[in-house]
């Protein structure tokens, strides 16, 4: 359709009607100063010159996948495991080592960390971000603490949202399907003078697992404004919030079938970016995030001979984060690029039920520097380090050294070594969860009697990348070995004076284990023509540890394939996901599974209105489980319609 209209235009250049009167051109259109748009921070590093393995999830992959939620997209990354413990507890890890709290992956949305300092995981459903507003997701496979600091241990996920200049106008969308899928989307993007803005309203509802009480409704509002007052400065203001109404607990403790969670997360962020030249720029980022979860359950009666009810009757918790970051990029020499960053953060967390009546808070200061040096065209040397003073982890240095060798066009090798730390979370360091009826302690469930050290990971990796433009082929392979020390987990009961249950604290946190991890993985992208592409990835992992749960926590192998073809009238895509046997730490074994998703879509264009009708069928092979064996994801289908004008 499009090609035909362009061809018609090309054949009849003289009959075109032009709506706007032409302003005359002058020499100033050629010589006046212009903004440096593609400054260093906006240009992504080519993967064959990057210091680490990177997978980029593009918009076309997001759309072809048919996924409705952010964490599902990470199935497309080699070595990643995604599991829905419940409809409101999606959890994501890379190469295993995780319980339902995946604490060793840093996640940043437009530079703002959405890592939960209270529990350590990411509450994926509680990020005020519509899938439709994502521009791309860059996943660093392996440690990235030299750039992103503590908790960027196993992987680091950078989500970039679309500029407010993308898709100007109205977008309206809706999805309806089985498993109570009901989604709505309303977005407006506009511009006026030096300002661009976008406002998105999005609601998502579903009932995720079969025979589980886990219906979930999210309603989110996200807004973004960009102000470009001159050629040098760009100011981006963002604010958003999400309200979640979720059945059951959002933290994994279930005390009643009636337990519910009311979740709120809101944020504001401002970034001021000044471009000094094509080689030099700085930016100032300030943001504040607040999260509150109200989880109530019917009070538990006190055991006989006592009467009344036990406290607490809720698992309410909250946390907030304020961050201020200054970053400067420069190129002091033709062959040398540098980035310097300084950051201060204040984390606060509170949960009277789980960690006592006090609000716990900690500050963190960071200084990082990295350099990329090209002594010759075929060599790139990277050196970077992050120095942090963290409220729990102490003062730590996370360095990385990497070298890329590009001996002939199309082939490149990478060797990298790095160290990363995972700080204890507020819950791990401050937990004090007990059922009481003053003055009695009936049962001490959780306690943190020990001063915890951060977990440490040392990593070495070897990469090989192959690129053949003629065939549209890109291959990225990675071999790695990680050594983890001081892994924090639950330990044996700890005596508690006066506890009536008499068995001490059921669970206490301590630095307990170590693990070695070996593996290899590849991702292959093949695009033989405009109409067809496929992304294939495979991963193999082995873990050795003094804790069997860690040994079993990664599938020996996994495979992902997403393929898409444009048939002309219709476009179709298929996703195939195979994950080997896995046992998430502290849970039961989940057998290997195969999942196939299909998507068919038809695009329309009427005047200036673009529309798309799509049908998505998920898990067409039948029920399967991602966590234990009784939490089944059943086949489902939904229809979605989206219109832009």
């Amino acid at each position, binding site marked *: 359709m*499009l*090609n035909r209209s*362009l061809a018609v*235009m*090309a054949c009849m*250049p*003289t009959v*075109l009607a*032009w*709506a*706007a*009167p*032409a*302003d*005359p*051109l*002058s*020499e100033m*259109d*050629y*010589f*006046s*100063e*212009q*903004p*440096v*748009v*593609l400054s*260093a921070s*906006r*240009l*992504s*590093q*080519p993967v*064959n*010159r990057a210091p680490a393995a990177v997978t980029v999830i593009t918009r076309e992959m997001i759309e072809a996948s048919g996924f409705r939620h952010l964490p599902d997209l990470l199935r497309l990354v080699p070595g990643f495991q995604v599991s829905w413990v419940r409809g409101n507890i999606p959890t994501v890890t890379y190469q295993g080592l995780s319980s339902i709290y995946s604490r060793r992956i840093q996640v940043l949305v437009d530079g703002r960390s959405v890592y939960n300092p209270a529990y350590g995981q990411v509450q994926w459903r509680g990020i005020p971000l519509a899938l439709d507003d994502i*521009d791309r997701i860059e996943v660093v496979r392996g440690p990235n603490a030299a750039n992103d600091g503590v908790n960027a241990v196993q992987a680091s996920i950078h989500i970039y949202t679309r*500029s407010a*200049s*993308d*898709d*100007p*106008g109205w977008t309206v969308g809706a999805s309806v399907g089985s498993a109570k899928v009901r989604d709505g989307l309303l977005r407006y993007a*506009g*511009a006026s003078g*030096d300002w*661009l803005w976008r406002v998105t309203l999005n609601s998502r509802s579903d009932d995720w697992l079969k025979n589980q009480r886990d219906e979930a409704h999210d309603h989110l509002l996200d807004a973004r404004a960009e102000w*470009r007052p001159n*050629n040098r400065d760009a100011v981006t203001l963002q604010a958003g919030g999400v309200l979640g109404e979720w059945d059951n607990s959002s933290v994994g403790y279930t005390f009643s079938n009636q337990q519910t969670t009311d979740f709120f997360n809101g944020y504001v962020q401002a970034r001021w970016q000044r471009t000094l*030249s*094509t080689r030099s720029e700085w930016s100032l980022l300030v943001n504040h995030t607040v999260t509150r979860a109200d989880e109530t359950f019917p009070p538990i009666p006190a055991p006989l001979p006592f009467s009344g009810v036990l406290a607490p009757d809720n698992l309410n918790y909250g946390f907030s984060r304020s961050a201020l970051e200054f970053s400067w990029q420069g190129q002091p020499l033709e062959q040398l690029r540098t980035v310097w960053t300084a950051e201060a953060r204040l984390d606060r967390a509170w949960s009277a039920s789980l960690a006592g009546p006090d609000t716990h808070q900690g500050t963190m200061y960071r200084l990082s520097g990295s350099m990329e040096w090209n002594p010759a065209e075929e060599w790139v040397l990277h050196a970077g380090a992050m120095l942090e003073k963290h409220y729990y982890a102490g003062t730590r240095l996370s360095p990385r050294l990497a070298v890329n060798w590009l001996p002939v*066009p199309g082939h490149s090798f990478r060797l990298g070594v790095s160290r990363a730390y995972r700080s204890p979370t507020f819950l791990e360091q401050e937990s004090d969860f007990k059922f009481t009826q003053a003055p009695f302690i009936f049962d001490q469930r959780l306690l943190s009697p020990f001063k915890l050290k951060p977990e440490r990971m040392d990593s070495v990796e070897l990469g090989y990348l192959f*690129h053949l433009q003629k065939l549209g082929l890109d291959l990225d392979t990675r071999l790695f070995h990680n050594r983890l020390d001081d892994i924090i987990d639950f330990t044996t009961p700890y005596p508690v004076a006066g506890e009536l249950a008499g068995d001490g604290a059921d669970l206490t946190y301590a630095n307990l284990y170590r693990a070695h991890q070996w593996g290899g993985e590849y991702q292959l992208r093949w695009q033989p023509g*405009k109409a067809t592409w496929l992304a294939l990835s495979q991963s193999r992992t082995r873990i050795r540890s003094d804790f069997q749960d860690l040994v079993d926590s990664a599938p020996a192998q996994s495979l992902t394939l997403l393929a898409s073809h444009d048939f002309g009238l219709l476009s179709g895509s298929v996703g195939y996901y195979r994950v080997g046997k896995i046992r998430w730490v502290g849970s039961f074994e989940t057998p290997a599974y195969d999942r196939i998703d299909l998507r068919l879509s038809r695009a329309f264009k009427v005047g*200036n209105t673009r529309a798309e009708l799509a049908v998505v069928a998920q898990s067409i092979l039948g029920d399967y489980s991602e966590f234990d064996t009784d939490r089944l994801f059943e086949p489902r289908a939904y229809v979605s319609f989206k219109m832009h004008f």
Partner: protein
Amino acid sequence: MIWLLRHHLARLSFVLLACSLLCAGLARAAPVINVLVAEPTGIYQETANSLTQALGREGWKVTVTSPGRNPASGGDLTVAIGTKALEAALAQPGRPVLSLLVPQLTYERLASGQQQVSALYLDQPLTRQLRLLGLALPGMKKAGVPLGPASQGLQAALQNAAKDSGIQVNSAPINKGSDMYAVLIDLAEDSQAFLLLPDPVATQRSTLQNFFLQTYRLKKPVLAYSAPLVQSGALLALYATPAQLGEEAAAWIRESWSKGVFRMGEARYPKRFTIGVNHTVARSLDIALPSEAALTRQLEAMP
């Protein structure tokens, strides 16, 4: 003796007369050039300097003024540098005018139907621009060209250039800045690179920012028309510098002076050019470009 003195005086006066006649003849042979600059600063002054230096070496008389000041009267040729200077020069007809630093479409609008007026355009020929894309990006077959209202007049020329260069062109209109996004998405479907042409709508600051962000996101390189746009984010730019235009105009003026009059001939594109390359963008797009020198040599060798 007195006779001899008279004889010598007579010979001396003859020689003096002959010398003065010759000098007068020579003075008539060197034309007077009035250079009218739109402003006595920046690119205008740079072009004027390069022109006057080249002509000054030949002993030609060149005066430089700007429209606001008292224009020099007389003269054999007015060189108007910049659009305002061209407008001022055309307001005083009857004397040959050579326009410099004015884009083709603007020149044609201002000078249509005028006699004794010619131009060395500011723009580079479209065929050369498309050929540069072909040389820089092997396998290049189609270029997308968003056209703002001011560049509509180039449609036919674009199609001719496509035939001459062997690079096909997909073009689409941008009537307002907010059209850019949809047009780029459409054009990108069938284009390997974008050609950016000057247009006040298409290159307005916020639209230009969106243009470069979007083309980069689409992983399509851009060939632009000026040095500042290489800094902005174009992979390549093809342009003539003010100094190059001044020198080329000087050479043309010298060639056109014959038998006491200027015959400038048809307005034309510059033969000289500069290729600007943004190596950072090339690296990020993973494009291995030939060197600027190699590209220049190959492009110069083309007809």
